[in-house]
């Protein structure tokens, strides 16, 4: 019997309302106090194609994806062949038996649970839309009974979901009971998997990364968002709009304390962000790889003209079409060196919703403090899937760090002000905003080479001086980005493992698996770029390092070699780039086999 340790996969047709039913299932397990992690595996399509929703339940709190399906809920005959094949031996295949299952889908080593979902639904509901929606609730009811999820958890969830539309509550409860009763009648025996109530989640929340970014932007004081729709980043702006409606409408006038502009393309979106931040409003955009490509031009200008900006890149599988709905960490190099000429950018790598919230809010402080674009690299897995996370927190004493901006008084007091003059030795000059002072502080922002006083120049010396100061600012940035987090192993190891973003969940689990095999490694989670001191020390103090990434070209490894001069022979890549979230087994196998090879070579 596997208690609280299994994977359920739902095979649906997209556009049939299955998402909310499947979420209901996840939320019910969450309410049972048990760690749960759902993954959407969806097509680049509006309606009619196969879509999957995979839910891992883990008593141990492992939140990465896991291969091996214990229970398949097959509601889409289109994908039966694949769905039957992906159930692990001894597992269960629950399907809509309104139509007889073809013989080729029968396996000896798995169990079949037959429920005539469509038949039950059709005989209970006459409205075609209701038949469709309640069919979904009926299978959730079946799972409730099969996995021993508490019924009243669902009752509570319905009550919350349909607050204000109370007449929908009994309809849903009835549909749920239809599924439960069918199981009681036809499958009274227990499965070898089930859910048992625990108290493992304490005050944790279940949230999507994109919504967390959106909330972080509201808390961070963003008043302007400019964007162009692109999967998987769109829900960042949708979320920002929703939270703004909640918190940013002036009660007296009904007017908005924010603006959102859907731009004509990503070039314009980035230009708008720069215009707004140049003019003293906190602004941001969100996009994905192809959009980042278009934003490259403006990012170079922003770097060189020293204009703050916040860009959230929800990474996906590249290049343009094909698998835009699958996850990857493949914009690392593109973001780090975005644009023409000598440019490099500050990057942030969140790995859970809490960090999405914190880092987005922090990104505005960082951008204004450093007067440069801040690019946050999240990904589809983090952005569009629900994750168990620490709750959001905000310190009400916190003051936004608006950076070095001279007020009218400041301009009157300043002597010899120069827009690009490094007064403090940290590479960060003082800027002024339009409209501040009738006679002082105006300057001409330009991408062309400029003196410390913002005047046009073609002097090689002046240009070099400016570029060297930008490097000084880069060194300052190292001390300001969120520092790396080290996981020391029990035995001090000369092997290190480095990972970032959504690889974290599976990497942590893989380390436990390695420890079980007596392979102890130190680990580090990267959270920002330029590489901080902790990161540099970790790299230099380990003889060999496994770098776990979700891209083909070992982009972080390249970045380490470029920026730190780390020798290639010391770095071993663990690369997952098939568009599915990386698993602990994958990481474990690669590292363990490398160790095995090393032992046998020795």
């Amino acid at each position: 019997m596997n208690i609280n340790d299994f994977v359920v996969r739902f095979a649906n047709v997209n556009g049939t309302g299955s998402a909310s039913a499947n979420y209901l299932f996840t939320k019910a397990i969450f309410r049972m106090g048990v760690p749960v992690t759902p993954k959407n595996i969806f097509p680049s399509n509006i309606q009619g194609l196969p879509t999957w929703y995979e839910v891992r339940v883990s008593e141990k709190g492992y939140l990465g994806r896991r291969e091996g399906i214990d229970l398949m809920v097959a509601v889409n005959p289109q994908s039966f062949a694949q769905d039957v094949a992906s159930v692990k031996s001894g597992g269960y295949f629950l399907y809509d038996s309104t139509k007889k299952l073809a013989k080729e889908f029968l396996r000896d080593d798995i169990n079949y649970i037959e429920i005539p979902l469509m038949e039950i639904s059709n005989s209970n509901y006459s409205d075609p839309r209701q038949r469709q929606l309640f069919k979904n609730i009926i299978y959730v009811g079946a799972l409730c009974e099969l996995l021993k999820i508490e019924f009243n958890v669902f009752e509570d969830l319905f009550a919350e979901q349909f607050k204000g539309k109370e007449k929908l509550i009994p309809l849903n409860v009835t549909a749920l009971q239809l599924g439960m009763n069918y199981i009681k009648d036809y499958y009274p025996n227990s499965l070898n998997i089930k859910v048992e109530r625990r108290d493992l989640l304490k005050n944790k929340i279940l949230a999507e990364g994109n919504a967390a970014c959106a909330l972080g932007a509201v808390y961070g004081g963003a008043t302007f968002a400019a964007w162009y729709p692109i999967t998987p980043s769109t829900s960042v702006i949708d979320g920002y709009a929703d939270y703004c409606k909640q918190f940013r409408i002036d009660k007296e006038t009904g007017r908005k304390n924010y603006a959102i502009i859907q731009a004509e393309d990503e070039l314009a979106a980035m230009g708008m962000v720069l215009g707004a931040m140049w003019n003293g409003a906190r602004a941001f955009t969100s996009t994905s790889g192809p959009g980042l490509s278009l934003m490259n031009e403006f990012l170079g200008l922003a770097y060189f003209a020293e204009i703050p900006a916040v860009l959230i890149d929800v990474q996906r599988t590249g290049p343009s079409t094909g698998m835009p709905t699958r996850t990857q960490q493949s914009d690392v190099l593109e973001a780090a060196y975005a644009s023409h000429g000598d440019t490099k950018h500050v990057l942030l790598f969140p790995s859970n919703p809490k960090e999405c919230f914190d880092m987005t809010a922090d990104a505005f402080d960082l951008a204004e403090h450093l007067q440069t674009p801040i690019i946050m690299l999240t990904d589809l897995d983090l952005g569009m899937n629900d994750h168990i996370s620490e709750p959001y927190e905000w310190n009400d004493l916190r003051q936004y760090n608006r950076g070095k901006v001279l007020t009218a008084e400041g301009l009157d007091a300043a002597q010899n002000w120069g827009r690009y003059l490094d007064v403090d030795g940290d590479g960060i000059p003082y800027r002024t905003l339009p409209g501040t002072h009738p006679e002082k502080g105006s300057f001409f922002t330009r991408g062309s080479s400029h003196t410390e006083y913002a005047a046009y120049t073609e002097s090689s010396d002046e240009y070099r001086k400016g570029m060297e100061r930008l490097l000084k600012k880069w060194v300052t940035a190292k001390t300001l980005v969120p520092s790396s987090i080290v996981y020391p192993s029990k035995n001090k190891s000369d092997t290190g493992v480095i990972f970032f973003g959504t690889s974290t969940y599976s990497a942590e689990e893989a380390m436990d698996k390695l420890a079980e095999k007596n392979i102890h490694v130190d680990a580090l989670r990267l959270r920002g770029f330029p590489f901080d001191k902790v990161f540099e020390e970790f790299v230099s103090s380990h003889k060999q390092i496994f770098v776990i990434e979700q891209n083909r070209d070992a982009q972080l490894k390249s970045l380490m070699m470029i920026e730190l001069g780390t020798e290639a022979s010391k770095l071993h890549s663990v690369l997952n780039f098939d568009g599915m979230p990386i698993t602990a087994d994958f990481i474990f196998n690669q590292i363990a086999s490398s160790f095995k090879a090393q032992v046998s070579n020795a």
Partner: protein
Amino acid sequence: MTYIKPKFRHPDLQKNKLGYTIDYYEGSLSTLCAGCGHDSISGAIIRACFEANIEPHKVAKMSGIGCSSKTPAYFLSNSHGFNSVHGRMPSVATGANMANRDLIYFGVSGDGDTASIGMGQFVHVIRRNLNMVYLVMNNGCYGLTKGQDSATADCGSKNKTGNINLFEGIDLVSLGLELGAGFVAQSFSGDKGQLVPLIKAAMAHLGFALINVVSPCVTFNNNVGSTKSYDYIREHIEATSTFDFVPEMTEIKTDYSEGEIKQIAMHDGSLIQLNKLTKDWDPTNRSSAMNAMLNAKENNEFLTGLIYIDPESVETHELIQTSKTPLNQLSQSTLCPGNMALAEINADLR
């Protein structure tokens, strides 16, 4: 020529209502070719702002890339300016305007910057009716890269290398009318008398104000056969097109009275006509303005003046209902919902 701008000013220079003399509105010394139409447009902007008593620090000068886009350095040195990226001025202006609705956004662009690389942004900033002045210094060619035809070069116009443009020229005025711009004007860089009041009116207009100014390129598009040369619009000028020789030229002044058609004969015999708005034309009627532009094209006339105005036009901030207080002036206490609200959000996510 000298590269130091003389600081001497006449002691009795007239002051405007703010107490500023006109030199307070000037910029640094122009590095454009002597005789460039753009410099006289800069002069018109300076004059217009002076006469309109504009506080220079309440103006943000926006530009893209090109000869035209360099000009914001040559006027209003007490205003902030943003020389952005080629063809992308509208987006930067949009962001800036969203941040602070209280400033005047004065955009300067060229024909390459607007009609080619920046066409997408130009079209969309009009759609949104952003409150800004968008002045195109239109010379039908790319000056900084030595004279290639631009998308506004008229079909059949000959450039300096003798190449005849085979493609239709884009008429920015007709396009602006089509896209719903609320203020559309056209002028000639040599006609300061008309340009100054047009700029003043454009700054006063609430919403997108387009001024297309034909501004001859003395170096690359001032040859016989070009429809954007001084000669084409002035009958008795001694223009030279000697290779790599930039003539020192004085600005042309055109004069015409209300209701008249002024014909400017070229020495090759071609003609351009400048029409003042006739009395029976209603510049507040978009379809009449569009018709007039079509007719003018057929008759080989170059209409100048205020082509169309919609005094009721509704600008972006009013369309999307943003706060009257500029967004960049909202306090942290207004913007940040605080930890209590966050506790409720957390509760909803459990």
